[in-house]
Structure formats: C-alpha cells, structure tokens
C-alpha cells in the first residue's frame, strides 16, 4: 500500500523536490574562469563554439556566459561573420 502524506510539502521533502520548475545546473562563465584567453573574433574555433549549428548566436542559458562576456561574445560573432570566418546561415540550412 502506498504511503499517504498529510500534506503536499511533506511528500515533496521526502523526494527532495522543492516543487516548481526543474532548475538547470549552475554554469560558470568560461571567460571569467580564464581571463588570459579572452574572446577573440579572429579565433575561428573559439567563435564557432558560440553559435548553433545553424549559425545563430547561442543564448546565455546555453553557453553559461556571464552578462559581460555574453555581450563580448555576441560582438565577436558579428565581427567574425563580417569577415566571412563564420556564416550568417550555415550552408546546410540554406
């Protein structure tokens, strides 16, 4: 017979569940962690990791960047696109 709980909170605490939406694990900003490897629009391999397969700029929730570095990252992607180091739209998706 399944256990019965008097209150909803009691049931949740039993399962280690605080209710509400699942929280994404806390990510740390890569560029804060390593200040000697700054974002560089010329570094194609680095900038490629900031965009999706389609060539869209990844959101902070995907990259884990802090606000400051996300701004820098977005700008670097735009510079790289201008210099044709990165596509505006990837070939595959055209």
């Amino acid at each position: 017979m399944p256990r019965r709980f008097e209150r909803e909170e009691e049931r949740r605490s039993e399962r280690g569940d605080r209710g509400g939406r699942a929280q994404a694990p806390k990510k740390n900003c890569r560029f804060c962690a390593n200040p000697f490897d700054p974002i560089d629009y010329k570094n194609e391999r680095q900038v490629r990791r900031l965009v999706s397969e389609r060539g869209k700029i990844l959101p902070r929730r995907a990259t884990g960047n802090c606000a400051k570095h996300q701004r820098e990252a977005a700008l670097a992607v735009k510079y790289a696109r201008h210099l044709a180091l990165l596509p505006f739209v990837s070939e595959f998706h055209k």
Partner: protein
Amino acid sequence: MQAYETTLILSPILPEADWAARVSKYEGLITAAGGEIKKKEIWGIRKLAYPIRHRAQGYYVFFQYQAPGELPRELDRNIRLDEEILRHLTVVAKGAPARPAPPAPELQPKGAE
C-alpha cells in the same frame, strides 16, 4: 594614439605581386600618419564562409598597430576606393591581459614552523 587592428580580404585572383603591393601600400598609409605597426600577419588564401562578390576564397591580411585617432577614417576611405578588397574591418584592439609571471619559488619549506 590608440591601438587598432585591421583585417583586409583581398581578391584571391590577383597576381602575387599585387597582394604584396597592397600590403605595403596600407602599411605605408599607417606609418605615414604617424602610426606604428605592432603586428603584421598574412593569413593567405582562406575559404570564405559565404561568397563575397562571387568569390569563394579570399586573401587575408591582418595588421595590429598604434595610430592617431584620425587614421581609421582615412584608411577606410582609401580601402573603399580599392575594388580588389572584398571586405575589411578595423576595430579598436583590446589588449589581452598579460599572463602573470609564475609565482616565485617558495623559499621556506612548508610546515617549517
């Protein structure tokens, strides 16, 4: 004086002498304005991520230099007149922070006290 960096994408079908001529021309413009070239990189022929003026490749040249603030505008004007330059970009160079020197070796062995 401000630190800048400029990347040029030249047409890939020029004879080699024309590439060299353009590199020295723009170098000359920078130094003539009182600038000082810190770094010059010839990346050479690279595939473009998308065609520019029906070209799939470009000849990339990169400069990093110190120059007075009026130079980028003048440089830009000259570059625009050159039909063999597919693309160019000048930005204020953001110096990478210097890596700190490795810590000095510990003189006293740990736990000496």
